[in-house]
């Protein structure tokens, strides 16, 4: 499985859609967008931080584990860090697979597990920036 994991401080740039093999039947893309209301509070955006080296290792291992149950051909993961304004993407994931079932289940499980275990944090203020 081809895996890319990217953390970026700027706007997420979607890579052009390339199909490494002619057996790919399904491409699923997910954008996580910053919403105006979070827990009832109105925001202009969110600040994201990560423990990047650990996050990258955790993601790579998680993708390899998910791959056993839901074989996919490629996964491209991009998470934006720093300030992300409302209406812009903080997260982008693309999954390529032979069939849609694997692609959709891989995507859903990857997001669930990222939200449980991968050291990335959002905040409505820029914690630690004042230090």
């Amino acid at each position: 499985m081809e895996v890319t994991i990217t953390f970026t401080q700027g706007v997420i740039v979607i890579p052009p859609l390339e199909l490494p093999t002619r057996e790919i039947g399904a491409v699923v893309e997910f954008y996580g967008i910053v919403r105006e209301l979070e827990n009832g509070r109105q925001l202009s955006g969110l600040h994201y931080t990560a423990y990047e080296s650990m996050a990258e290792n955790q993601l790579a291992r998680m993708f390899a584990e998910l791959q056993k149950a839901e074989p996919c051909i490629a996964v491209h993961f991009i998470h934006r860090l720093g300030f992300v304004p409302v209406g812009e993407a903080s997260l982008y994931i693309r999954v390529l697979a032979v069939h849609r079932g694997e692609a959709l289940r891989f995507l859903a499980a990857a997001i669930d597990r990222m939200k449980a275990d991968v050291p990335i944090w959002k905040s409505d203020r820029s914690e630690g920036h004042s230090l």
Partner: protein
Amino acid sequence: MPVKLLAFAHTRDVLGFQERVFDCAPGDTPRALLARVAPTFDCAACRIAIDGEYRDWDAPIGAGRELALIPPVSGG
């Protein structure tokens, strides 16, 4: 031996630093280190990682060189 302690998210405010190096005795656990350097820190509210892997608060740090306080994550 020196170990680097990283703080993320709100633990940066609690501890007052993003990273700092501490001296660590052989057999020290993460819980013992935190009790020494930040006695009021609530370990129950956080996970601990050693060299980028989640570990037990009560397992020896051993050859670990980088500890990280991992409060509940919220990526996405």
